[in-house]
């Protein structure tokens, strides 16, 4: 432990309102801490700069999963275990349940939250490509009110987000009625568990008459932020399923990602493997017969 606990202050307000009021009192100087599974790693390494922490871990207001007719609203404070155990999530949003199951180990899943994964804004966050593929919205709250934004606009640069200094992520809204979609996700890490992603692809597609009607592709760890592969989606939309799809898509995809060489992998590996994952997904579509 390289941090000195006496240099830190931690308060745990009993209600969301109190937390927001404190947050608003000195905007930017209080850092929310939920499960602490990202922040405590920094703390242990002596690299947690913020000295004032508001614990939001026990706020019940942030831990609901609300099932409305058009969408499901997941409280930002829901843990990975909450997600894995919720019947509507596992049935209708299996990619999120899977991403939750792939995140760290059981202990980490019992504490780590979805809101924490989003706010932490790592390009390798495993639920993030999934939320992008589900076209999620975020509800952000502050003492002065709340706003709703499309999640795909949230990450503005490496570790930069639209979250204002006095705001909290309140919940994540995912539209329902995805029954016509076929979905896919694969995490590629350095080992089969307890691994940070080298590449992540989440994909959804709706097909009719052997033609791609709607396709959503979202990738992690191939740029400064998790991204929707919008160009690739455009290239594939409306295409009949045939063996030139991957070639068509692979080129566009390579141009819209910005992978880097880092401590975990290489840009070259990330590019090739992301293409392979896309190939694996396309290959799995009914009627696909092309070689990957």
């Amino acid at each position: 432990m390289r941090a000195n606990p006496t240099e830190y202050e931690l308060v745990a307000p009993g209600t969301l309102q109190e937390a927001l009021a404190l947050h608003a009192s000195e905007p930017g100087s209080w850092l929310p801490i939920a499960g602490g599974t990202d922040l405590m790693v920094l703390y242990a390494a002596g690299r947690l700069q913020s000295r004032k922490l508001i614990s939001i871990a026990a706020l019940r207001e942030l831990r609901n999963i609300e099932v409305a007719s058009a969408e499901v609203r997941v409280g930002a404070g829901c843990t990975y275990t909450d997600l894995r155990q919720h019947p509507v999530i596992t049935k209708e949003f299996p990619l999120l349940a899977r991403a939750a199951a792939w995140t760290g180990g059981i202990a980490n899943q019992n504490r780590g939250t979805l809101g924490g994964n989003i706010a932490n804004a790592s390009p390798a966050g495993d639920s993030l490509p999934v939320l992008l593929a589900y076209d999620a919205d975020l509800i952000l709250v502050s003492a002065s009110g709340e706003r709703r934004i499309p999640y795909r606009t949230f990450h503005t640069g490496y570790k930069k987000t639209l979250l204002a200094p006095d705001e909290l992520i309140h919940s994540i809204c995912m539209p329902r009625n995805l029954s016509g979609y076929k979905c896919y996700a694969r995490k590629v890490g350095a080992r089969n568990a307890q691994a940070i992603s080298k590449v992540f692809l989440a994909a959804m597609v709706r097909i009719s008459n052997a033609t791609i009607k709607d396709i959503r592709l979202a990738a992690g760890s191939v740029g400064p932020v998790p991204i929707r592969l919008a160009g690739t989606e455009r290239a594939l939309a409306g295409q009949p399923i045939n063996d030139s799809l991957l070639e068509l898509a692979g080129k566009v995809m390579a141009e819209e990602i910005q992978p880097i060489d880092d401590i975990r992998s290489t840009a070259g590996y990330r590019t090739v493997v992301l293409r392979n994952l896309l190939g694996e997904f396309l290959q799995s579509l009914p009627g696909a017969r092309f070689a990957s």
Partner: protein
Amino acid sequence: MRFCAYCEGVKLTESEETIIGTSVPRKEGRDKVTGAARYVDDIRLPGMLYGATVRSKIARGKIKRISFSPEIDWNEYVIATAKDVPGKNCIALILDDQPCLVDGVINHPEEPVVLIAHPDKHALAKAVEGVVIESDPLPAIYSMEGSEKQSEIIWGTDNIFKSFLIEKGDVDRVWAEADFIVEGEYFTGAQEHLYIENNGMIAVFDSVAGVTVWGSLQCPFYVHKALMALCGLPEEKIRVVQLETGGAFGGKEEYPSMIAGHASILAMKSGRPVKIVYDRLEDMVATTKRHPSRTRHRTALRKDGKILGGEIDFTIDGGAYATLSSVVLSRGTIHAGGPYLWPSVRIRSKAVATNTPPHGAFRGFGAPQSLFAMERHMDRIAKIVGLSPVEIRRRNFLQPGQTTTTEQVIREPINLSDLLDKSLAHASYKAKKENFARENKTSSIKKGMGIAAFLHGAGFTGSGERYLDSVVGMEGTADGSVRILVSSTEFGQGTNTVLCQIAAEALGIPYESVTIAQADTTIVPNSGPTVASRTAMIVGNLVRSAAIGLKQTLQLDGTLKKTFKPAEFGAACRKYVAEKGLLRSLARYNSPEGVYWDDVTYKGEAYAAYAWAVYVAEVSVDLTTYAAKVENFVALQEIGKVLHPVLAEGQIIGGIAQAIGLALYEKVLWQNGRMLNGQMTNYIMPASCDLPPIRVVFEEIGNPHGAYGAKGIGELPMDGPAPAILNAIVDALGVPFDSIPLLPEDILEAITRRVQSRQQITSPQESPC
């Protein structure tokens, strides 16, 4: 007991053998499971300070100035530098070249320069940052090639810590007769031990009693020797006590002397107890790792695949100081020829200096490195000669009566061909190979089978055991139980349990009636370091002798009858102690007769016993992610005698897991001599879900030099998996791989290179694999 005629001589027990060969509960198991076991970080002494180490940031240079940040109130801290070393500023081991604290010249990153201590451990991190070491950098060397070029001399006169030459027969003549000459070059990387418990020590100084240290360590008397020199105190004024130790793997063989030294210097300067416990980052970047290696083979073969002779060039990266590199090199050199008959061979080896933290002891101790090369090379030979990997090995296996590269005669009735056949049968090798050849054509997951045959010598090399001159003690106590006195330590591998089993067996008393003393240098004799797979075999045998001595003392005295029941033994102990006082027996190592070893020519009996093994790996490579996964593993070995089946199997499985890490996952990323990825998120060791089902099979032909026929097994399982796995990957993909760790990125690169070279019609030559 199933002993062959060869070992009949060791069946010396009169009693029914019920303890040896059974899986009795671990001696310290209950305390570990209930949390009662006390590790160094659990211990707090009154008035204790916490110590921390300020380390060099550069790889090489001259210190100009050490300054202390004015933002910190240094009056609260105890500060020590090289000036405060009471005795000789070195870590006494083999050569005394490594300073305990840098005195002027920095030779590697993370080298200890300044020590600080404070009553509040949280006050340390910032203070460490507040010490600024200004230095003039000197050119540094970061690779074996750089060291060999000698553009900078960073150690001695030629950057070479040690070199060896083994010569057998006349290898210069074989090249002309050879039908095939096969060359190959093989590399292995550094590996971090990743014991669960990080390194830690507590030191206390008292002007009358001297220095006492408690800590996590393998070799109490190594620490003892180092502290005598460092503190300038006589033998009796240094006391070293091992606490419960949470794993070691060789990583707590030499470095604990450094930490004990630091804690002692601070304790002597402050007059207060001082505890130093490393966190994971410090432990990973600053302490020892497995030596990286490069091996070159050039082998002459006959048409039928028989080895005529060869040259082997083995080089290891020792880091900045000599530490244990010479002995690691020795073992690697002796194992370089594998379990094969070399009618002639020349093995040249050297350990070179680089400006990285010194590499050190790690399970296998050089053998995994040179055996990796040998076993990959066998597959390359097979391919070129046109034989299967199975057949090439079979034709060259050592047989009883033949000699190893050091001209040690194989006296035991080992049949390696038979081990090979059994191992292949357990792995369904033939059927699987056929299936994979068919399935691989259409699948994006390519599968392959690989084998490795190898041996591992137990005990110190050559004359080492004679020099160690180990002593074991045993006491009968006033309550009728028996206590073993050894400096051999428990760190998870089962020392306590197995030694108590041996004593109980030899005395004919229940396992529960035997305990083992804490390894405290004021109480136990020096039974040698707990390394080199020597404890069960060599120390175990001494425990058995000491037990027999104890029994004879009671019998000669008339207190105990010739034949007795366990309860009668207890009663005899009680009576003897009550009437006569101390009941103690000592046993000293006697080197076996007729054993010859020449330290100069490196000829003779390198080891008293070898364990033999054939491992088979089944591996898949997913061409979507280029990740290789070990799907199944068969580990068949001849280990003399299995003393404790659960512990023995645990050693094998654990070693294989660690070796899978060495082969496919664990990569130290170096930047200017410093480890960049000193965190478990970035230094990837395999987790349970990355491990295959492992089938462990034991063969037992006994060993006249080991307790109840046992041979050492601790290191053996580290040797074979990496080459077996790489051979399987080569089998699956048809692309040669000669370097470990082999990561998905490397597999992708090799495949891409092959595709590219295929596209260039001008260069149709493919490298053989």
